[in-house]
């Protein structure tokens, strides 16, 4: 009897201690997908189909977790990263996510890519109380802790980025005549909305032309000819890399020199600026939150050195100009941090709680000064950007780091 009592007292003490510290020393607690030896992470990304360029993100993340496992895992547990192909099709995304949850029994779904796919799985994951962590899309709607407490974004939202451009234009070029070229999908339309919101009352007087293109078009020459005819002096390019490069090249070929601002999605030196021609890209503006793998100015940066070593060892032969490799590394590092913070309490609720408690976390690949911060009401982990100008063969950062959160409508 006394013996029993003692255990009871002891365990009560342990519980009290765990409750008071609320940290890694807590009792081991697991939900489906986690155990003493393993944590199962699910992911969907297009490996096939027209959006297969993004497949590299999934490959980088898989390689990152291989590295983590080679180093002994996280808190002694190996990461089992299961990634499926959704071919950028919402019905396939639903099928694959259900497979991850119901058949592979993963703890969380991490970094699923694309606004349509994420919208398709959001309701399902939230009703099952499974974290939809760090989604790989910049739509604003992921920052909605109240209605979707199990979904959290990662990258800065498209709208907040567009806000920054609008604010900059109002300050630096208050009488600008703006033309906007945007991709006719959720990505382009979010930028369009962000720009208009940012310009506020001046939007109707400053924006003289909104021109959309379809991603199935082989070239966008005709749009540029049309935009040039309207004679704006600022061109906002909300286009994916191939079309952004075409735009920058075509405007130069037309002998036309408006002020060009290009979306953060298309800032890769190696796969946008170089194909467009460095001489054509001089003076183009953009904003960034991460470093560019093909930009020589980061050659001696400790974070990017780690990134380079990782690629050399775990993804030999990978094309370092792909921004997907920087992106996947940063996202995977954020997840690893969250799991580490979870300690031995690997319940889904705790993973979500820790994901919403990141304080000044800085993955190796983010720009100096950009930090990840989340809270119970702030589900937009990265919300800082810095403006930059293309000069010579690299981007030159200027101005302060600007923070711009936009809440979901």
């Amino acid at each position, binding site marked *: 009897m006394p013996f029993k009592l003692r255990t009871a007292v002891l365990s009560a003490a342990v519980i009290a201690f765990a409750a008071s510290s609320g940290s890694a020393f807590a009792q081991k607690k697991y939900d489906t997908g986690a155990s003493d030896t393993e944590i199962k992470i699910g992911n969907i990304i297009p490996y096939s189909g027209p959006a297969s360029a993004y497949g590299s993100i999934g490959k980088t993340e898989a390689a990152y977790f291989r590295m983590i496992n080679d180093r002994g895992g996280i808190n002694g547990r190996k990461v089992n990263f299961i990634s499926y192909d959704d071919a950028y099709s919402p019905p396939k995304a639903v099928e694959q996510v259900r*497979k991850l949850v119901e058949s592979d029994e993963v703890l969380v779904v991490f970094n699923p890519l694309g606004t349509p796919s994420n919208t398709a799985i959001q309701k399902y994951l939230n009703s099952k109380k499974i974290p939809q962590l760090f989604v790989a899309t910049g739509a604003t709607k992921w920052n909605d802790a109240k209605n979707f407490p199990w979904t959290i974004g990662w990258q800065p939202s498209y709208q907040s980025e567009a806000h920054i451009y609008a604010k900059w234009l109002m300050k630096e070029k208050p009488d600008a005549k703006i033309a906007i070229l945007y991709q006719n999908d959720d990505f382009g339309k979010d930028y369009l909305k962000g720009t208009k919101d940012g310009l506020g009352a001046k939007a109707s007087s400053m924006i003289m032309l909104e021109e959309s293109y*379809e991603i199935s078009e082989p070239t966008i020459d005709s749009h540029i000819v049309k935009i040039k005819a309207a004679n704006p002096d600022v061109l906002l390019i909300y286009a994916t890399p191939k079309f952004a490069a075409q735009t920058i090249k075509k405007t130069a070929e037309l002998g036309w020199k408006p002020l060009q601002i290009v979306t953060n999605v298309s800032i890769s030196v190696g796969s946008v600026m170089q194909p467009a021609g460095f001489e054509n890209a001089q003076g183009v503006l953009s904003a960034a939150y991460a470093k560019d793998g093909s930009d020589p100015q980061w050659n001696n940066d400790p974070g990017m050195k780690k990134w380079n070593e990782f690629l050399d060892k775990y993804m030999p032969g990978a094309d370092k100009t792909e921004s997907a490799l920087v992106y996947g590394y940063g996202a995977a590092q954020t997840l690893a941090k969250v799991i580490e913070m979870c300690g031995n309490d690997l319940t889904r609720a705790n993973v979500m709680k820790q994901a919403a408690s990141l304080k000044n976390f800085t993955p190796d690949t983010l720009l100096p000064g950009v930090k990840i911060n989340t809270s119970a009401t702030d589900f937009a982990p990265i919300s800082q950007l810095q403006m930059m100008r293309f000069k010579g063969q690299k981007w030159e950062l200027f101005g302060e780091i600007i923070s711009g959160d936009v809440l979901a409508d």
Partner: protein
Amino acid sequence: MSAAEEVVTEAPAVEAVPKRAMTLGYGTSLVVLAALILTPLFVKNFIIFQMTMVLIYGLAVLALNILTGGSGQFSLGQSAFYAVGAYTSAILMEHANINYALTLPVAGIICFAFGFLFGQPALRLSGVYLALATFALATAMPQLLKLGYFEHWTGGVQGLVVTKPDAPFGLPLSQDMWLYYFTLAITIGIYIASVNLLRSRSGRAFMAIRDNEIAASAMGIDVSLYKTLAFGVSAGITGVAGGLGAIAVQFVAPDGYTITLAISLFLGMVVGGVGWLPGSIVGSAFIIFVPNMAESISKGLSGAVFGVLLFLVIFLVPHGARQVALVAQQLAAKLKKN
């Protein structure tokens, strides 16, 4: 090029399938039916969901089969009809609060009308020309759905989220299982109706047109009526499948209904056997499961593995699952004799 008109005896694009060979025998049908009814009781919800999708795409492949295998018209535009059906159901459910089951006939009727109208200009086209016209329809559809004018109803580029129905009358079934049996009932209904349609006077007219249009018209068949009718019926069934798809996936967006879907449905028809209705389910299973298989073999090369698997299938059985069924039938007959 010479102005002289060329005279050709062109082989029909689709080979003649006798109407009796278009179905399964009673015994086999019952076995398949029993399997379809009993399997969900023993598997996970996720598998049930996949089976539901097999039935839904199976319906869409069946619809294409009626058009191509039945009337000899080729379509790469089935994704457009599927999309119209899906959006009809989604809009009625989410904006007008209409019961999901009631949205399906509406989707079917709207798509029938749409297909019938589309069949009118398509009348004058055949072969590759018809393929291009239907292809145009398939590429146009996602862009139409995105148009600002319809955004209030369609949700534009963001799409619409659809609520999944619970089992009615307090039946102790999970949402997935209920939806599966609901889909199964509709599929069986449409399958039986399609078999009867092809055995009817209209079905014979379809096939006469497929085998030789000029001869058919000489026999007094109203070729244009039956050709457009085939388009209408095919579109209508595809529309119902689209509606069911929207309910099962709980989401509609322009990205879900691209030309890729139309191509998948086409592949499903070829793999299942052109003109053999039961093959539709086999073809549908192929387009759902083989990409997953390819992916598990190699992630980086999943597309290539899928292509190789597809080549293997068409090399081994160029006539699709129908050929397998025929061989099996002959074997069975031989065994009986011995």
